[in-house]
């Protein structure tokens, strides 16, 4: 009987296992991950896990019901793979157990980047796993102040959650504006204002020089001239791909595990997907990793189908979202090229659609509480369709109509 081993039991690993069964694979499926929990979605970790009133009811974002793995004969093992022998196709778990397999999917994800010289401690936290989130949740009880190092999506989501619990929040960000590469400047400022209205203090262009842990908190020294004590600190300065196992077993790596558009690594029969996978993107085929919920799900599904003999290419339209206060912000496309015109369809400050055009095609769009409208223009973005900017700017013109006309 054929065995497929999936290394990493996060969202990508879980979706891949599900897909193998949904596609009719009747061999053995082994899903091994180093967390003590069955696969779950991480977005809730910076939000409801931290804000829910009840400890016993603060997490529900499991990928599947608890009986799913048994019902579908998926051998989920809460153990990490320590050795991967590519030639003999065997994996050795920390427990010593050895697993032989025919094909392997690596979905080891990423880990929180840490500040040099600032390890996790009783008052310093990173936020990546459910266990991390539960530790932060516990520390928030009775805390009055927190410093967030890093004003990216995770840091800002955490800031909103901490404000919801009445904690004073200071965000320390090295850049001069928030999310400089991910958001148009205009919206970046709106987002900062939203946080300031909710009581968040920002230190922009600020660099952490040192942190000193004390019994009841941490004193941060921040350039140019701030020294301040906080009850605790959350470090949210990005993630690093978990590629060490793949690299040690001889697969090609470098900012993640290198795969082609079919999710195949450099070794026959070995695939990778999700946060840890570095793939050729777009017409230019430039290599990148996408750290997103969408990528973890969709790339894993493509990988699983290809492992069963299909030939599906992974060509995503990058789509991200973040929830902060009462805003659900969604972004389509990447803000990685020049935009020569911005068009906004704004219903209110809390509901809008902002589109960036290049040569009369929408290359990037951002929606606040307006996911349905963002979805309506997805094909226009994906196919770089020529649009009439005047019609796009006219609130009397429905986006669906525009989309239909463009494709009729």
């Amino acid at each position, binding site marked *: 009987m054929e065995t497929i081993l999936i290394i990493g039991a996060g969202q990508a690993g879980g979706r891949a296992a599900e897909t193998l069964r949904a596609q009719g694979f009747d061999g053995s499926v082994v899903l091994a991950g180093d967390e003590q929990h069955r696969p779950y979605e991480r977005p809730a970790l910076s939000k409801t896990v931290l804000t829910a009133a009840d400890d016993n009811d603060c997490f529900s974002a499991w990928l599947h019901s608890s009986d799913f793995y048994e019902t579908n004969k998926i051998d989920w093992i809460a153990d990490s793979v320590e050795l991967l022998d590519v030639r003999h196709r065997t994996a050795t778990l920390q427990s010593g157990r050895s697993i032989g397999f025919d094909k392997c999917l690596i979905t080891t994800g990423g880990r929180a980047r840490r500040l040099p010289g600032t390890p996790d401690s009783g008052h310093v936290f990173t936020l990546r796993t459910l266990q991390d989130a539960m530790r932060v949740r516990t520390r928030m009880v009775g805390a009055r102040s927190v410093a967030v190092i890093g004003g990216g999506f995770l840091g800002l989501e955490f800031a909103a959650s901490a404000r919801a619990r009445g904690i004073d929040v200071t965000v320390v960000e090295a850049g001069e504006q928030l999310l400089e590469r991910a958001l148009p400047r205009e919206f970046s400022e709106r987002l900062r204002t939203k946080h300031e209205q909710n009581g968040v203090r920002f230190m922009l262009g600020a660099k952490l020089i040192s942190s000193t842990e004390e019994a009841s908190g941490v004193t941060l020294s921040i350039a140019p001239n701030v020294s301040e004590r906080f009850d605790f600190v959350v470090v949210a300065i990005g993630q690093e791909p978990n590629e060490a196992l793949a690299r040690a077993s001889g697969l090609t790596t470098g900012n993640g595990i290198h795969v082609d558009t079919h999710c195949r690594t450099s070794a026959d029969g070995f695939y990778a997907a999700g946060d840890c996978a570095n793939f050729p993107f777009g017409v230019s085929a430039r290599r990148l990793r996408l750290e997103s*919920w969408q990528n973890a799900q969709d790339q894993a599904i493509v990988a699983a189908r290809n492992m069963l003999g299909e030939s599906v290419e992974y060509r995503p339209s990058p789509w991200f979202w973040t929830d902060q206060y009462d805003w659900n912000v969604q972004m389509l496309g990447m803000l990685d090229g020049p935009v020569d015109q911005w068009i906004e369809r704004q219903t209110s400050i809390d509901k809008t659609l902002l589109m960036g055009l290049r040569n009369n095609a929408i290359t990037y769009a951002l929606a606040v509480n307006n*996911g349905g409208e963002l979805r309506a223009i997805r094909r226009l973005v994906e196919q770089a369709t020529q649009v009439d900017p005047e019609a796009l700017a006219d609130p009397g013109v429905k986006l669906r109509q525009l989309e239909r006309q463009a494709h009729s």
Partner: protein
Amino acid sequence: MTLQFAANLEDLNVDEPYAATIGNEQIALYLVDGEVYATHNVCTHQFALLSDGFLEDGCIECPLHQGKFDVKTGAALCAPVTAPIRTYKVQIEKGAVMVEL
């Protein structure tokens, strides 16, 4: 099971899901190929109103995570949704959309 008023038929537009509240029940109505269909309005994955979503080819796509349901059967069509959405029987009476609750 009783038929209850949900909306005036003339208020429904093609391509545009319609939110109706009947008592405590949140319902989404859809006009597809001249027929009206009704589902529960809250996605089975996480809290989001399907009436804010994207309707195409008889499928409603959730505005939060793009999970998809068949509005006729309630079937969950793609990740991340796995549980079907509840559907309701609909009758049109004198221009009124009536939903069986």
